[in-house]
C-alpha cells in the first residue's frame, strides 16, 4: 500500500509518519516530498528539525524549484531578534499566509518536520485544531507530518493520529537498510485498511517493497495450518467403551447414601478416642 500512498494523497488528507529513536522516518518523508515534486506539485516544508541545506542535500536529484522551505529551524522559540517562524506561529492564519506567499495554480502540499517539535511547545488540542482547520480550510491540498511517537504520551499520539487519514509507523527490520511500515488507512466511507510492508529506500528516494510481511489471505491460511487436534495426545480417555461404562456404573459414588453405609454409620465400632482423657 506504500506505493499507492506515494502516488498521491487525496485532497484534504493528512498523512502521519510515526517513527522512534531506533529508526528515523525522515528518509521516508523525503521520499514523499520527492514523489510530490516529481508530480509537479508545490511543496511547502515547515522545517523545525532540519536546515534548508540539509533538506535539499537529502533531496539531491529532485526538482526543487517547487519546494518552499519555511525556516523554523534556526530560531523556533524567538531567542534572537528576528525569528523567521516560531512555534507559536503555528496557527491557521499564519500558515495560510505562508503558503499563499507563493502563487501556484494548484493548492500545495504542506510538510511538517516535525509535529513533535510543535507538540513540545503547543498544547495537543491546539495542534489538533490547527491541523483540522488546515485540512478543511482549503489553503493546502494535503498535509504530511512526521511524529516521533516515543517522545510523547500515548494519549497525545493517539489523538493526533485520530485526525489522520493515513498513518505509517516505521520500525527497523532485521536486515540492514530495510524497514517495516505498518500502514493504517481510513477511507472516506469509514472503512479502515491495515497493512504491513517491508521496504527499502533507494538512493534516488524511490521505494522498493521487499515483501508484504502479512498479507491478510496468507495469514489466514497460516492460522488454519497450525490448528491441530487438542485431543490427540491425551493421557486419559475422553470416551468409554461399553464394558468400561458397565464397570463404572457398578461403582457406588462417595457421599451417596446406600443401605450398607447407613448400617455402618449407626452401628459403628468402638470409639478410638474412648480412652482419651480430655
Amino acid at each position, binding site marked *: 500500500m506504500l506505493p499507492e500512498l506515494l502516488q498521491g494523497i487525496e485532497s484534504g488528507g493528512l498523512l502521519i509518519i510515526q517513527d522512534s529513536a531506533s529508526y528515523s522516518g525522515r528518509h521516508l518523508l523525503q521520499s514523499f516530498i520527492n514523489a510530490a515534486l516529481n508530480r509537479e506539485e508545490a511543496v511547502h516544508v515547515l522545517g523545525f528539525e532540519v536546515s534548508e541545506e540539509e533538506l535539499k542535500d537529502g533531496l539531491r536529484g529532485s526538482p526543487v524549484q517547487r519546494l518552499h522551505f519555511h525556516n523554523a*529551524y*534556526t530560531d523556533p522559540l524567538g531567542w534572537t531578534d528576528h525569528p523567521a517562524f516560531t512555534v507559536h506561529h503555528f496557527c491557521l492564519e499564519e500558515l495560510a499566509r505562508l503558503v499563499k506567499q507563493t502563487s501556484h495554480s494548484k493548492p500545495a502540499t504542506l510538510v511538517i518536520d516535525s509535529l513533535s517539535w510543535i507538540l513540545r511547545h503547543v498544547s495537543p488540542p491546539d495542534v489538533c485544531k490547527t491541523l483540522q482547520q488546515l485540512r478543511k480550510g482549503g489553503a493546502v491540498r494535503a498535509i504530511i507530518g512526521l511524529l516521533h511517537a516515543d517522545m510523547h504520551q500515548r494519549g497525545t499520539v493517539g489523538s493526533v493520529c485520530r485526525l489522520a487519514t493515513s498513518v505509517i509507523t516505521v520500525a527497523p527490520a532485521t536486515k540492514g*537498510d530495510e524497514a517495516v511500515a505498518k500502514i493504517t488507512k481510513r477511507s472516506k466511507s469509514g472503512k479502515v485498511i491495515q497493512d504491513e510492508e517491508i521496504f527499502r529506500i533507494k538512493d534516488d528516494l524511490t521505494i522498493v517493497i521487499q515483501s508484504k510481511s502479512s498479507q491478510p489471505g496468507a495469514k489466514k491460511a497460516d492460522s488454519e495450518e497450525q490448528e491441530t487436534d487438542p485431543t490427540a495426545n491425551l493421557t486419559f480417555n475422553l470416551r468409554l467403551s461399553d464394558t468400561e461404562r458397565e464397570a463404572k456404573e457398578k461403582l457406588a459414588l462417595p457421599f451417596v447414601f446406600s443401605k450398607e453405609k447407613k448400617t455402618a454409620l449407626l452401628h459403628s465400632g468402638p470409639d478410638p478416642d474412648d480412652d482419651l482423657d480430655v
Partner: protein
Amino acid sequence: MYTELNSILNTTPDSFTQGEFVLLSDRESDASFLIHHFLSLYLRARCKVCFLGLVQSFNHYSAISQRLGVSLAQAKEKGQLVFLEGQKESLSVLIPQETDTGSPAMDFLRDPAVGLKSLYEFVRSAVSSSGIGEGEADGAEEWGPPVLLVDDLSVLLSLGLSAGAVMDFSHYCRAIVCSLLQGNVVMLVRCDGEGEEDEGDDEGSERLMKGLTHQCSLTLHVQGLPTGYCRDIHGQVEVCWRRRQGDGQCTQKKLFQYKVHDKGASFFAPGTSSAVL
C-alpha cells in the same frame, strides 16, 4: 585521543566530518573517557573549542588531557579553548561575592523556569568570536571550525531544568554550530534507569536521550557488559550512524568492546579480547 576510535569513526585530526552532532550516552557505565577523546581530538585538529564542563573541575580535565598529550591551560591561553567551569560558576551564583556575581551563563540556577537561553548566549559568543587570544594581538592564530562539547547534560536535569528545556538548548546549539558555522557538537547524557520503558517518567533522562537521539547524526552508547564486570573488558560501546551515508546506508550499527588504559583505550570486536583469545 584514541587512534583506534578514530579509525572506527573514520576521523583524524586532519580530516573529520563537519556539521556533525555526536551524542554520547551511557547506562550503568561511564562514557566520560569519550569526552576526553573528543576534547583532545578537536584541540589537535586546531578547532575553536567551547567546553561546558559541568561535572568536573578544570584541573580534572586538564590532568587527563595532559596524559592524552594536550595542554588545556595552553589552549585556553591561546584562545583556542573557552572553558566554562560549571562548579565554580554555580558557586558564585549561589553564594554571590562582591567582586564576582557569577557568569550570566549560569542564570538558570536562579530560576530554572526561564530555560537555558543565557547558557546558549554564552555558547554563541564563544563559537562566533574570531578566536584571537586575549591580549595577544600579535599572536593572532586562526582556528578551524568551532566545536561545542558538553559534559554532561544530565546535570542540568538535576539542577531543576526540564528535559524539554535541555532539548531546546541542544537544538539551538546544533542550529548555530553544526548548520550555520559547519562545526561539530558533542554532548554526553547519562541514563540512570535500567529499563527502556518507563511510561510515567516523562521528564527524565530517558526522554532527554530519546529527544537527542532524534536530533543527532551519530551516537556512541556505552554500556557495561551484560555478564558483569571484567578486568580485561570494561564494557561495550554501540556506534550508530543515523544520517544517510554516501553509499545509501541510512542507519548503520556496530558494536565494540573496549578497555580504557592509562593513556588511551583499545576497541575490539566482541569476543576478541586478549583475555579470551
